[in-house]
Structures are given as structure tokens and as C-alpha cells.
């Protein structure tokens, strides 16, 4: 097991370096002179020079990359070109809001998706199965931003149950924290729920057909034990896989959800940075998000090993 974790960790480090090269190369892709692009067409020469030296654009590329990477590894992602604020503190300040939203969205996706997929997969072709399949298909097609607007119209403007915008930190008022994040979590979690329900259904339906499951049923093992011991255990590998992918997808989706609901998290920070072409923030944000995804992927790999002992030595 430890061996497998170390190997996965090694792979993650390699991928991190590749991503760091890609992220660094972003600024090299800017058409024309990056300093001019960042400063704006009408900026005076002094401002352009200041940005050029702040971005280190005068050094050879290898030196630029090395300086940038070593700074990033010590937690220094540079400063915002717009506010002058340190990028890493900008990201860590906003992490609690994004993490709260992610936790609620993922929980919702799992709590809704796994039981629905399980019930559908145990009774393939039933009314419930067909209904769930239609709902999942729609859930995957509905644009999150539109769902958000419809939810706001109905639950905030008409019924007044939830606030339309804003985020309250958990430490300030847990109830308002929950109320404020309910609609955003539904917005962000719906597609994930649909995908998890689909994968669970496929996994459960597939495992149910296996001979050892049929044998267990034939031997009179009660259904709840067959489901718990055999079906769910074997179906959980694809579920965990899709869950890992969904976390990455939701991190991307937070860009839209946070902007609509006025949550000052990493997603809305990213949108702001992109609109202002604030490259140090964009680069730091991409690297930061990628590190989170790599950690999630590592956790997924470790959980494979816990679910299925065969994976540990593979």
C-alpha cells in the first residue's frame, strides 16, 4: 500500500512540474509585448517598464521560469498587478468560501446520486430506473448559470427562503452560512449528482449480473447483505473515480457559480483576474487549483487500494 502511495506521489510530482511549465508558458503566449498587453494600449512608457521588470520579462526564459518556480514552491506567487496584494494570501483568504461551497456541493451530489443510482441499478428497466435516467440526462444538459437564475427567481425573489447573493463565514453564523450556500450548492452539485447517479447505476447493474452475486442470492443471503457486501463494494470503484473527476469539474464550475451568487471565493477571484488580465493572479490560481486536483486524485488512488486489495500491489 505504502509502495503504491509513494509511486503515485512520484507521478503527481512529475505532473506538477509539467503543469508549472504550462502555467508559466501562458505569459509567453500573449500576442505582442506582454507588458503592453497587461498595462493597456494607452499606458505610458514608465508603467510598461515597471510591469516589465515586475514580471521579470527582461531575463532569459529559463531564468524567468526558475525564479518563478522556486518562488512558487516557497509559497510566493508574486503580487497582483492591479491591487498589489500578494497572490497567495489572496487565494488562501478566499479558500474557506470555495471549500465550503465544494463540500456542500459534493455532499449533495453523493447523497442524491448514489442512492438514486443504486435503486435504478438494482431494478433495471423499472419506472424508477427510467425516470431517474431521464432526470440525469436533463441534469447533465441544464446550464448551471441558468439553473442558478431560476433558483434565485423562485426561492429568493418569490418565496424569500434563501438570500440571492452573498456569503457568510461559518465562524460568523453557521445557519446563515448554510442558507447562503444552499442555492449555490444545488447549482454546482446538480450535474455531478446526475453523473454520479449514472455511474452508480451502471456499476450496480453490471455487478448484479455477475455469477457470484446470483450465487449469493440463490444461497438465501438477504438482499441488504448482498448489496452492502458485494454489489456496493464492487460498484464503488467507478463511483470513486467519477467523484474525483466531479471535484475537478466543480472547481471549474465554481468560477460561474461564485460569480452569480456573489461569493468572494477562488472562482470569482479567477474571473476578476482574467477580466483585468492580472497574470500573476491567473498563474497562481491555476497552479493552486491544480495542486488541489492532484491531492484529490491521490486520495482517489489511495481509496482504490482500500476498496480493492488487488490494486495495492498493482
Amino acid at each position, binding site marked *: 500500500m505504502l509502495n503504491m502511495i509513494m509511486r503515485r506521489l512520484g507521478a503527481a510530482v512529475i505532473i506538477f512540474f509539467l503543469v508549472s511549465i504550462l502555467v508559466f508558458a501562458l505569459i509567453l503566449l500573449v500576442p505582442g509585448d506582454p507588458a503592453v498587453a497587461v498595462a493597456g494600449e494607452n499606458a505610458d512608457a514608465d508603467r510598461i517598464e515597471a510591469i516589465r521588470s515586475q514580471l521579470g520579462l527582461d531575463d532569459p526564459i529559463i531564468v524567468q521560469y526558475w525564479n518563478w518556480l522556486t518562488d512558487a514552491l516557497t509559497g510566493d506567487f508574486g503580487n497582483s498587478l492591479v491591487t498589489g496584494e500578494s497572490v497567495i494570501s489572496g487565494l488562501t483568504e478566499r479558500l474557506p468560501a470555495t471549500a465550503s461551497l465544494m463540500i456542500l456541493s459534493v455532499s449533495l451530489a453523493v447523497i442524491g446520486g448514489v442512492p438514486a443510482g443504486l435503486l435504478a441499478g438494482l431494478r433495471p428497466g423499472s419506472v424508477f430506473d427510467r425516470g431517474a435516467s431521464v432526470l440525469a440526462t436533463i441534469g447533465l444538459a441544464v446550464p448551471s448559470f441558468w439553473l442558478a437564475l431560476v433558483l434565485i427567481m423562485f426561492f429568493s425573489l418569490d418565496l424569500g427562503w434563501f438570500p440571492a447573493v452573498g456569503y457568510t463565514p461559518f465562524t460568523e453564523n453557521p445557519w446563515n452560512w448554510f442558507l447562503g450556500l444552499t442555492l449555490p450548492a444545488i447549482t454546482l452539485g446538480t450535474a455531478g449528482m446526475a453523473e454520479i447517479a449514472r455511474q452508480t447505476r451502471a456499476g450496480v447493474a453490471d455487478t448484479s449480473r455477475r455469477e457470484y452475486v446470483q450465487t449469493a442470492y440463490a444461497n438465501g443471503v438477504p438482499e441488504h447483505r448482498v448489496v452492502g457486501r458485494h454489489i456496493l463494494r464492487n460498484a464503488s470503484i467507478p463511483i470513486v473515480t467519477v467523484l474525483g473527476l466531479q471535484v475537478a469539474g466543480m472547481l471549474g464550475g465554481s468560477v460561474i457559480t461564485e460569480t452569480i451568487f456573489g461569493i468572494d471565493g477562488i472562482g470569482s477571484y479567477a474571473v476578476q483576474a*482574467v477580466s483585468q488580465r492580472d497574470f500573476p493572479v491567473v498563474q497562481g490560481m491555476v497552479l493552486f487549483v491544480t495542486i488541489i486536483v492532484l491531492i484529490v486524485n491521490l486520495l482517489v488512488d489511495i481509496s482504490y487500494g482500500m476498496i480493492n486489495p488487488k490494486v495495492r500491489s498493482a
Partner: protein
Amino acid sequence: MTASIDSSPARAQTPGRENGEPVARGVSPRRAMLRAFVGDRLAVVALLVLITMGALALLAPVVAPYDPNAQDFSQTLQSPSREHWFGTDDLGRDLLSRMLFGARLSLGAALIAVTLGAALGVLPGFLAGYRGGTVDIGLSRLTDAIMCIPGLILSISLIAVFGPGTLQVAIAVGVAFAPRFFRVARGAALSVAAETYVKAVRAAGAGHTRTLLRHVVPNASSAVIVQASLMFGMGLLVEAGLSFLGFGAQPPAASWGALLRRGSGFMVEARYLSVIPGLVITIAVLAGNIAGDGLQRAVTNQRSSGR
């Protein structure tokens, strides 16, 4: 080199042979696939919806009842009526006409994104799957790295580079799609390259380029086409999302996502301005996904049942 080695096995050997499965005599795999797809009523309806939307988009200048950018301050924020089926916006512009012209941008951007994603991902994928070794390891690692960046994050950081605009968004989405095409193409090439007839062609002295282009590419391409059709709906969705954030077409031009963005400012007084564009996006994405699923089923059924 003899003729039987030159032509692809689908034509040269047992009629309609694919993946070693026998296929009914006289029925080509492509026709069998088409027959399976046409038998899938829901998928056909979905495809017709998409074709209708595409036709309306192309004919927008003819079918649109009004000039999409003509402002009429006596007709602002009018609810849907017989004169304005989808109502009017805050500047009195006809929403139906704007949606019809917006369809060109939205459908066009999704099409460009998928095409670009395929163009960037497929050839390296075929190469990696066919050659294996260092080429495969290098390209696969690079793909793994790109796929660790969530798609939307990757797309918006590319927009930071290129700036906002319809084409820029399409390019940003296309680049984010490329790794998926790479993986599908690589997998397909890998399985085709392991087939006996490919080994036979190589043993008979065909070069790598020739083997790849004449034998691997034609036989691995159905997987790529299925993937492209599955990605179209997602392309629409991502393009709409980025336009909703304000990164897409710049005013007065507006794709569906941009119309929704503008409409969202009138959630209290004119809900139809955000409900209608969202509904149309949902229907288009749904149609794309269902048609893509249908195509995938048709291809796999044709393979496994040999019909």
C-alpha cells in the same frame, strides 16, 4: 506491394469485417451503423432538432422578423406577444431575432471548438497509440498534466492570454477539449495496431506513415467521430458559460450565453429575458447529448451484434 495489402481490410477481406466480428454479408459497417442510428427514434429526433437549429441560424437574415440590433425605445421590456414572440429587451430589441443571430455564434463556436479539439488531439493520439514507447509516454504525460487543470479554469486562463471574443472562446474551449480526443484516438489506434492485419501489413514492408494513414486512421476514426458528437453539447455548454461571464462575443453581437447574461440583469421585471435563452441552450445541449449517445450506441451495437 500487392493490392490485397494496399486496401483496408474492411474492403479487402470478409465483407464488412470489423474487430474480427463477422458482419452480415453485403452490409457495410457504415450502413449497418446508419441503420442502427435511424432505428433509434429519440436520437433521430434530437438530430433533427439540431439540424433545424442550424438551418435557422444559417437563415437568420431571412427568417428573423426584426433587425437584431435595431433599438426601439417605445417597445422596451415587452413580454412575449404576437409581434415579439420572445419579447423585447431593455433597448427594445426583438429577442427572437437576437436569438436567431446568436445561434450562429453559439453553434458556430461549439463547432469550431470541437473541430479544433479534434485537430489538436487526434493526430498525436494516433501517433502515441501506434508508435508506443517514448513518444507515447511523453505525449500521455503531457495530456495527464493538461487534464489536471479543470477545463473551465484552463479555458479562462487562455482567455486571459487571447482576450475576450467569440473566436477566442472557441479556441480556449478547443484547447481544453484536445486531451479527451487524444485519449480516445490513442486508445483506438492502440487496439487497431494490435490487430493481425496491421502486423501483416508491416511485415509485408509498408512504412509507418503508410500503415498509419491507410490502415490505422480509417479503422480508428469511428471512435473519434463518436467522441466529437459527444463533445458538441459540452462545447455549447462551456461556450455559453464563458459568454455568460462576459468573455464571449462583445456587444452589440451576442451569443446565447451573452443574451442570458444581459437578461439576468432583469430578473425582477422581465424574467423571460433569462428564461427563454436558458431554455433554448438546454434544448440544444440535450439534443446534442442525445444524438451523440445514439451515435455511440449505433457504433457499439454494430460492432458487438454484427448487424
